[in-house]
């Protein structure tokens, strides 16, 4: 109970974090309550195609197949958040393990892994993702895994820096003196204590994952069996002159969701290192 109060107070202390957290709650509500706040199934091909926004039955209009835009936006939230959570979970897990090993063990392992991290940060991720998805098929599962597997380097870099400084701390040294082995120390002390910057970074990672999935869909590499905002923009491109709303609303949804994640991430960074927040922003 005390912990919850403390967390709530921290959230309230930072405007960006508060706004971001409220936004995430709204997104989660939309994910859960999707059938309640929509009138149509997003995959239903209705009889009225290309209805303009403002129509009493379809407030945001319909697309070329008669699908209700509002329903598509709402159900698209599920896809985007699923991509965000799964991809960034894989990426965080890989980053924590690889970065933790590099920073804690040091020496050759660190030199090789650091160079690898720098190299991977340099390579354009979009192209790699695109290539793999084109080769292995564009099911949503593939897309999520590939995004996760290609976005770990920034997490690894953060975790490595944490591990480097933590291993010099007294409590780690004393654990060493007590005879705990290196794997135990890594799992019990280094990773739990160094994980916070990675968590803050994960919110940005989620935003990037959503953007990447949308970009893939826009290039025609999306999963055609799911409703996705990027797919909506892709579909709307053909009808840009006659039915602007198909492409427009999908993009607005992406934009708002990214804003929520960025605000949460920046807020978390402010709260985690208050000094940094003053100079930046």
């Amino acid at each position, binding site marked *: 109970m005390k912990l919850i109060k403390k967390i709530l107070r921290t959230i309230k202390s930072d405007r960006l974090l508060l706004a971001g957290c409220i936004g995430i709650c709204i997104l989660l509500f939309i994910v859960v309550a999707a059938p309640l706040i929509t009138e149509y199934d997003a995959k239903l091909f209705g009889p009225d195609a290309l209805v303009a926004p403002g129509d009493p039955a379809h407030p945001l209009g319909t697309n070329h197949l008669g699908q209700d835009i509002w329903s598509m936006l709402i159900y698209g939230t599920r896809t985007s958040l699923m991509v965000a959570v799964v991809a960034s979970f894989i990426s965080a897990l890989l980053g924590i393990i690889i970065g933790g090993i590099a920073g804690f063990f040091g020496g050759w392992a660190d030199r090789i892994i650091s*160079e690898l991290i720098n190299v991977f940060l340099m390579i354009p991720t979009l192209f790699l993702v695109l290539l793999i998805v084109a080769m292995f098929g564009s099911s949503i599962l593939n897309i999520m895994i590939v995004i996760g597997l290609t976005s770990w380097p920034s997490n690894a870099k953060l975790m490595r820096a944490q591990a480097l400084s933590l291993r010099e701390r007294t409590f780690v040294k004393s654990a060493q003196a007590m005879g705990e082995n290196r794997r135990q120390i890594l799992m019990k002390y280094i990773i739990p204590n160094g994980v916070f910057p990675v968590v803050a970074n994960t919110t940005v990672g989620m935003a990037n994952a959503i953007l990447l999935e949308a970009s893939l869909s826009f290039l*025609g590499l999306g999963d055609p069996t799911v409703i996705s905002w990027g797919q909506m923009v892709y579909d709307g491109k053909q009808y*840009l002159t006659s039915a602007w709303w198909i492409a427009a609303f999908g993009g607005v949804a992406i934009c708002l969701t990214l804003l929520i994640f960025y605000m949460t991430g920046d807020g978390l960074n402010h709260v985690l290192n208050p000094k940094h927040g003053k100079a930046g922003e």
Partner: protein
Amino acid sequence: MTKYVIKRLFSGLITIFLVFVINFILIHIAPGDPVSVMMGKDNNDPELRAALMAKYGLDQPLYVQFYRQLTTTIRGDLGDSYIYSRPVVDMIAEKIGPTLLLVFPSALIALIIGAAMGILSARHEGSVIDVIFSGLTYILNAMPSFWLGLMLIILFATRLNLLPSSGMIDVRAGYTGFRYILDVLRHLALPLGTLVLINIPYYYRIAKSSVLQVTNEEFITTFRATGMSERKIFNKYVFKNAILPVVTVFGITMAFLISGVTLIETVFAWPGTGRLTLTAINQRDYTVLMGMYLVVSVMVALTMIVVDIVYALLDPRIRY
């Protein structure tokens, strides 16, 4: 300095080598055997199959294949596109001009505008300008580039009918000389504008935070205490120190730009490498895709190296 340059070149080479290795691994673990990956789907020409087998030594052990493929790649042979039966290198070389025309100017313009906005914000921290700029860049940062491009088309091409929405030249007009350049510039306006808008936030952020950081340094306070004018302090000391991090961001943004431009080229039907990539995706032309991946990585690595060297020239601390 020489040692620093060699070190940077070496890590650039590692990057490119790694991309090559990724390509090699992908070919071998992709569904189907490497030959069918390179030949494309529904192609069963036994003659082509035999030629490819011989060229890359695909009946040999893996390390021989790796060596063969590496040497052919170093010689500048990225294989042939199975759709067009043409060398991938030639296809990319043809299309790279328009892409670079889009990438470099937009990066430069974004740098100038973004840095100027950031410096202005930092000098008047908390003012109306600062709040507006910060809010604007925050929202811009969250916009998907391809969507912003489409919205600009709706606004400037469809509604206002001011600018062309696609292509690089007006094919029907057939302009020459100065009119031709003017025509290209008109077509360039929207894609270039989109890229500039998308890239401004990065420069804005870094310029603003580094100016603020330098302003809070002790030596600046000392100058203030001695009564030096604010303008002189800024021009002589703050600006020089604050602009350096902006240069580094230029390298990093370049990496995003060179691959991200694919999306923008798709939106505006710009006849560059992005179009090539898109066609290759649709036809599952893997040799072209892998060639593009390699070329893009080389370009990114080169830009990074150049930026790092420029940075080291500007700031001697880096070299040591």
